C-alpha cells in the first residue's frame, strides 16, 4: 500500500476538515472511517430508528452487533451496553460523524469559556482548567468554519458573545410560532433572545438548497441536504483535490510507532475484516472523545507500554459532555406549528455571571418533537397508559413548549474513558470502559438552569410546567463528548499542545473534541470545527514537504 503524507482517522466534524485542509495544501491523505457514507436519501423519516430515538437501533452507526461498551456504576458493577442504549454514550459512526444527523446548532463559545479556571477557580474535586488558546486565537477559524460549512442565524440580539469581524453568511430561518411566543416573554424578563446559529441553509448556499422545514430534523439525515456537515461540505472538496482517498468501513486497530518513538502509520481492519497497514509521515486521530482515547490506549508498544500520549496517565480523563436540564410548559393555546427544525430562539444571559455558580449554559427551545418524544413529557398525574394517557397526548401535543440547555460541565479527572480488561468488539479490540460521574456542582447549576427555563415559560403564558432536572448516575458524554485528550502547555497534565500535537510524539495529532479543556455551555460542533481549522493551519505552516518539523 502506497505510503502517504497523512492518515486521518475518523471522517467526522474535525477529521473532514483536517482532510480537506491538508489535501488542499498538497499533502497526500488517506481518510479512514469506520462507518458508511450515507446521503440525503438515507433520511427515512423513521421515528423509531434514527440517531436520537434508537428503539430499533442507530440509523447511522454503530450497529448493536459487535460494538459493546462497558460502564461501571456507582456500586462498582460493570455493565455491558449496546450502541442503542443511552449509557453507551453514542455519537455516530459514519462519514460526517455526528454532523450528518445532528440538530446543527453551531455556536461560538464565549471568551470566558476558554478561561474557566481563571474566571471561577477550580471547585474542589474538579479538574477545571483554562485553555492554552483564547477566543481571540480561534476567532478567525470560527469565521472560516461559519463560511465554509455554512451557518445561518443572527447573533445581533445578544450582547454576551465575543467580538466578530463578519456577520453569519446566511440570515436565520423565518421565526416559528414558538419564537413569536417566547421572544416577547424573554424581553419582558429583561433577557436578550436571539436566533440560534445553525449549520443549515436558510437560503441556497454552497450549491445546495434551503431547509424545507419538515419535522424529521435532529437525528436524521436531511432529506433535502440543507443541513451542513462535513459529509456534504469539506469532505467532497478534499476528494476533489485528487489528494485524498476516503476508505469507509475501516476500523483503526492501533497507531504504529518506530523504534525511535515516532508514528509511522496505522493498522486497521478493512471493510472485509482484513488487517491492513497504511504507512504515513503523520497520523491524525479524529475519532471523537471516546474512540480517540480508546485508540491511543490500544496503541501499546515497548516504548509506550500504557498507550500513546499516556506517559502521565492523562489519556481518557476529564471526559465531559453536557448536563441538559430545562422545563416543559403547558399552554391553553396551540404553540406547535409542525415547522422544523423547531429550535429557533436562545438566550446566553445565563452562561456566566451568576454569583455562586461556576458558569451556566445557553437556554433554547427544543427541536421539533416527534410524537414519541411526548409520551413521558405530559403534566404530572397524567395516567401512564390507557385512555387517560391518550387523551392527554391529544390535548397537549400541540400545546407545549420545551426549553432546555446544555449546562457547562465541571470536569473531573475521575470521569474517564479506560479500556475494559475483558470485553472485546467484533474486531477483537478491547472496548471502552467508562468510569466516574459528573461533578456535583454541575447538578447544582443544572437545577438553577431548569428553574430559569421554567420562569421563561411561565412568563410566556404556560398554565402548568414541569421541571426536567435530574442527577446523572454516570459520567456524561454522548453526542457532545469531549475532553479526553486535553490540550495544554504542561505535558504532566495534558495530552496535546495547543496545536493538537501529542506532547512526546511530534508527528501524531489528536484533532477533535478530545482536546477541549472545557466544553462551553453550548453545542460544541462549531468549536470542534474551529479547532480543526486552527490546528490544520499550524500543521500546514510547519509542513516541510517530506515530513513534519515541529
Amino acid at each position: 500500500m502506497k505510503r502517504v503524507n497523512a492518515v486521518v482517522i475518523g471522517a467526522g466534524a474535525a477529521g473532514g476538515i483536517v482532510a480537506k485542509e491538508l489535501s488542499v495544501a498538497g499533502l497526500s491523505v488517506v481518510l479512514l472511517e469506520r462507518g458508511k457514507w450515507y446521503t440525503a436519501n438515507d433520511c427515512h423519516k423513521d421515528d423509531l430508528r434514527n440517531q436520537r430515538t434508537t428503539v430499533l437501533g442507530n440509523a447511522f452507526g454503530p450497529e448493536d452487533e459487535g460494538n459493546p461498551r462497558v460502564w461501571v456504576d456507582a456500586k462498582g458493577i460493570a455493565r455491558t451496553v449496546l450502541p442503542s442504549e443511552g449509557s453507551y454514550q453514542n455519537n455516530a459512526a459514519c462519514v460526517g460523524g455526528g454532523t450528518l444527523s445532528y440538530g446543527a446548532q453551531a455556536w461560538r463559545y464565549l471568551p470566558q469559556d476558554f478561561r474557566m479556571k481563571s474566571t471561577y477557580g477550580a471547585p474542589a474535586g474538579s479538574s477545571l482548567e483554562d485553555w492554552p488558546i483564547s477566543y481571540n486565537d480561534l476567532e478567525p477559524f470560527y469565521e472560516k468554519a461559519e463560511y465554509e460549512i455554512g451557518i445561518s442565524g443572527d447573533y445581533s440580539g445578544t450582547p454576551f458573545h465575543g467580538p466578530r469581524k463578519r456577520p453569519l453568511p446566511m440570515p436565520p430561518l423565518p421565526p416559528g410560532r414558538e419564537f413569536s411566543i417566547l421572544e416577547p416573554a424573554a424581553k419582558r424578563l429583561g433577557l436578550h433572545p436571539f436566533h440560534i446559529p445553525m449549520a443549515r441553509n436558510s437560503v441556497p448556499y454552497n450549491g445546495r438548497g434551503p431547509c424545507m422545514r419538515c419535522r424529521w430534523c435532529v437525528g436524521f439525515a436531511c432529506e433535502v441536504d440543507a443541513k451542513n456537515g462535513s459529509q456534504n461540505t469539506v469532505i467532497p472538496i478534499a476528494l476533489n483535490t485528487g489528494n485524498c482517498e476516503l476508505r469507509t468501513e475501516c476500523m483503526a486497530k492501533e497507531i504504529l510507532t518506530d523504534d525511535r518513538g515516532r508514528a509511522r502509520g496505522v493498522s486497521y481492519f478493512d471493510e472485509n475484516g482484513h488487517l491492513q497497514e497504511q504507512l504515513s509521515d503523520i497520523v491524525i486521530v479524529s475519532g471523537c472523545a471516546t474512540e480517540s482515547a480508546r485508540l491511543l490506549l490500544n496503541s501499546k508498544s515497548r516504548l509506550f507500554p500504557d498507550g500513546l500520549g499516556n506517559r502521565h496517565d492523562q489519556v481518557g480523563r476529564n471526559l465531559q459532555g453536557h448536563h441538559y436540564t430545562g422545563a416543559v410548559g403547558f399552554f391553553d393555546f396551540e404553540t406547535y406549528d409542525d415547522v422544523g427544525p423547531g429550535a429557533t430562539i436562545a438566550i446566553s444571559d445565563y452562561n456566566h455571571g451568576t454569583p455562586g455558580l461556576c458558569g451556566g449554559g445557553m437556554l433554547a427551545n427544543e427541536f421539533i418533537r416527534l410524537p414519541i418524544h411526548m409520551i413521558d413529557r405530559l403534566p404530572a398525574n397524567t395516567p401512564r397508559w390507557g385512555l387517560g394517557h391518550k387523551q392527554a397526548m391529544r390535548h397537549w401535543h400541540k400545546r407545549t413548549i420545551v426549553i432546555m440547555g446544555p449546562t457547562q460541565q465541571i470536569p473531573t479527572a475521575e470521569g474517564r474513558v479506560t479500556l475494559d480488561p475483558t470485553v472485546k468488539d467484533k474486531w477483537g479490540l478491547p472496548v471502552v470502559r467508562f468510569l466516574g460521574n459528573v461533578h456535583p456542582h454541575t447538578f447544582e447549576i443544572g437545577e438553577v438552569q431548569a428553574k430559569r427555563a421554567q420562569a421563561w415559560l411561565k412568563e410566556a403564558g404556560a398554565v402548568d410546567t414541569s421541571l426536567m432536572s435530574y442527577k446523572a448516575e454516570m459520567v456524561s458524554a454522548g453526542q457532545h463528548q469531549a475532553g479526553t485528550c486535553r490540550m495544554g502547555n504542561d505535558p504532566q497534565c495534558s495530552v496535546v499542545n495547543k496545536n493538537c500535537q501529542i506532547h512526546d510524539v511530534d508527528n501524531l495529532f489528536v484533532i477533535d473534541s478530545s482536546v477541549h479543556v472545557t466544553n462551553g455551555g453550548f453545542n460544541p460542533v462549531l468549536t470542534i470545527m474551529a479547532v480543526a481549522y486552527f490546528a490544520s493551519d499550524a500543521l500546514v505552516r510547519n509542513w516541510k514537504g517530506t515530513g513534519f518539523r515541529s
Partner: protein
Amino acid sequence: MSTSRKTGHLTRRQFVAAGALGSAAIATGCAPGKQGNWEQIQAMSRKRFGQDLELLSQPQQLAIVSELSEQDRTFFELVRDHTMEGYYGSPRHGGNRDAVSWRMLGLPEPPPLGRSQYDLGKGSPS
C-alpha cells in the same frame, strides 16, 4: 407475528383498544424477538376469558393489562414503552397503521415531502 398480520386490517374497535389499553400486539410489531412475552399475555387472556386478547371486549382487555401491570412491573413497562413506540412511531412498523396516531394529534398526513438534488431526475414528487 403481529396481530395486524394475523387478523388482516385492525377494526376500528381494535384501533380504539390499541390506544386505550396499548395493544400488546403493537408491542410485538415493533419488538421482534418478544414473541415469548406476547405468548405470555395471550396465555393470560385465554386462561381468564377463554380467547385471545385482540378478540376480547375493551373492559376485558383493560382487565388483562391491569393484571399484567400488577404481576410483572418490569415486563409491563416494557410492553407499555413498546406499545407507545409502535403507536406513535413510524407507520412502517405496523403499530401506527395509516398514521392513525399522527392524525389523532392533528399532524398533517401525508407529511411534506422534499426532494434532494439526488431526486431531481425522478419526475414529480410522490
